[in-house]
């Protein structure tokens, strides 16, 4: 259940965007600027959130009228180590310590659907959380830290598979398919790519985030489209974007097939007029070099 604290859209005085140089952050920053919102983007070069000194720095930087959008995390494609897990937690620990002393207008936190168990094929915000790796456990731990904030209203956005041009992670799905199709003229599937996943276009993620910011939404939402497609189908869509033949390679399966579908009723209840990019349109929007 989410609540929009603003009766109508109101631009915040300023959005402070942590992790603004990444795939989603970059687009979000542009979109917020386009609608007239002042955005201060902070990356790891500007502030080391994992250092204890970050608390004082944040207290100086943040104003009570700010909306903080927090995208910063060291993602699994960089490392899955325990050290990274701890470092990610420290980043949130320091933000929360700062916000406890100096609350802000609103906090938007980007979490992940990795907080749900892998075997859960049908997921809503009411589904039990059961992270199965340190990345999922990290996001869940961060969510719990945030839930202890008393004076800063917050929304947690659990991201599913985000795709679109400009992805920096190359995670399995459309993003990696495009990368390998461009580089090697091949797409490698796990098994035959039977797994169904909900792929959401980065522009839709950015649009929903903008709505959460201007409506000052509070609560928890999964960011998904409500429509799942198999990796195999998506791979073929990607291959069809190229003039030359792309080889789709199916491999012997080493793990069981899991599927993931979303009930997005809460998202629609929050923003009833929401529309999503069709996967076909989203895939065709990639820029092929």
């Amino acid at each position, binding site marked *: 259940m989410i609540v929009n604290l603003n009766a109508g859209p109101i631009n915040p005085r300023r959005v402070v965007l942590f992790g603004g140089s990444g795939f989603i952050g970059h687009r979000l920053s542009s979109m917020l600027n386009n609608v007239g919102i002042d955005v201060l983007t902070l990356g790891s070069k500007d502030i080391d959130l994992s250092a204890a000194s970050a608390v004082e720095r944040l207290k100086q930087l943040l104003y009570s009228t700010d909306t903080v959008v927090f995208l910063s995390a060291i993602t699994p494609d960089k490392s899955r180590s325990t050290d990274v897990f701890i470092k990610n937690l420290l980043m949130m620990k320091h933000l929360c310590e700062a916000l406890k002393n100096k609350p802000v207008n609103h906090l938007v936190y980007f979490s992940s659907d990795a907080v749900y168990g892998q075997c859960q094929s049908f997921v809503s915000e*009411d589904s039990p959380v059961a992270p199965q790796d340190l990345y999922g456990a990290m996001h869940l731990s961060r969510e719990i830290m945030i839930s202890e904030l008393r004076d800063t209203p917050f929304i947690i956005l659990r991201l599913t598979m985000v795709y679109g041009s400009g992805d920096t992670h190359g995670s399995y799905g459309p993003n990696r398919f495009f990368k390998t199709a461009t580089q090697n003229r091949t797409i490698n599937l796990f098994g035959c790519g039977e797994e169904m996943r909900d792929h959401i276009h980065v522009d839709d993620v950015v649009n929903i985030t903008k709505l959460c910011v201007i409506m000052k939404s509070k609560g928890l939402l999964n960011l998904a489209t*409500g429509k799942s497609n198999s990796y195999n189908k998506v791979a073929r869509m990607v291959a069809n974007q190229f003039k030359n033949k792309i080889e789709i390679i199916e491999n012997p399966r080493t793990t069981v097939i899991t599927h993931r579908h979303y009930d997005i009723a809460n998202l*629609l*209840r929050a923003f*009833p007029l*929401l529309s999503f990019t069709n996967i076909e349109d989203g895939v065709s929007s990639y820029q092929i070099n």
Partner: protein
Amino acid sequence: MTKPTIGFAGMTHLGLVHGVSAAEKGFQVVCFDQDHDKIKVLKEGHLPVSEPQLDELALKNSRRILFSSSASDLAKCEIVYVAPDIPTDDFGKSDLEPINKLLNLVLESARNEAVIIVLSQVPPGFSRQKLQPGRLMFYQVETLIFGCAVDRALNPERYIIGCVDPRQPLPQVYDEFLNAHNCPILKMRFESAELAKISVNMCLVATVSTANTLAELCEKIGADWAEIVPALKLDKRIGQYSYLGPSLGIAGGNLERDLATVCNFANEFGTDASVVRAWIANSKHRRDWPLRVLNEEVLRINPHAVIGVWGLAYKENTHSIKNSPSIALIKAIPDCCVQLFDPVVSADVVSNRKCISSISELDACAGVDVLVIMTPWPQFSKISPKEIAKQMKGSTVLDPFRVLDGKECRDVGLRYFTLGMPN
């Protein structure tokens, strides 16, 4: 020998229906409520409850019914049923304060030898706690179904009676009243009777949830649930009266109360209720079917669409809107213009500036982009799809309960969406 006089304390849906039905069976009846205004209205012949046959039977038996706001009138009764509403909170948890108060008043006002019967739904353990030395107390499971409450009160399938000691015979006057209904009488200890009512409802919810789970699958794989249902109903283990119609989840409040009670007891006593929690989740999921389809088929394309809604009540033949899927849908689309029609429920229950009350079904269709039929009132099925299409600006119809003929709708150019089959 004169027939006993039967009292009903609490002029609720339950109390009123049972009071009028007892009068129809030839008994003198005292219908008591502390609310003077409510009694005044009842004396004037205006019944605040909508049920088939109720108005006619109340009028027909008016000489046998005494409406009273004076508790001393209960002293005229050999039997007093205690039937207040048991309100529930948003989590389905019962508030027992109203029944505690009313039961105390009845015990003070009725004769010492009168048989006192709790008719409202109470959690297991309630009745035994209320026993008083020298007083005759029972718990009778109520099987009221909104929309056919009078028929069920006149012709019950069976009586389930909770007693201190089920081996003892029932008091003669109580036995006489029950036997006037010609059905089996099942005596059991208080706790069993209290749980029996919940058990009946759990079996209903299990069936509803099964139907909804499989109907949704039908929508995806090309099957039609309506074709499967007759096969199930002919199976003796399932039965012809089972609740197999696809629906928008559990509503009305009573079933939700029992689901909450079972979960709470399971938590307290350490038993497994995970299946019950799954039913609750499934109910919520199916309730949102119209919202998902509306977004997918209409609002994504036309955010300014005008929506016609038929039905506000949580089901047909009732004025109740408790946990109504229709109300949930309207709340979820606060920025949309909605034209409402319900034969019984006033559009005033919806506090949304963009909702307009309509005077008829077709009036609610005038100029709309989409029609959503949220309550399967029988009269809705009499409206011709051709007339609907003529009134509408758009062509999308969401008819979860198949009130209209889907083929006829498609034949006149309407895009027809329903539960249990692919669209």
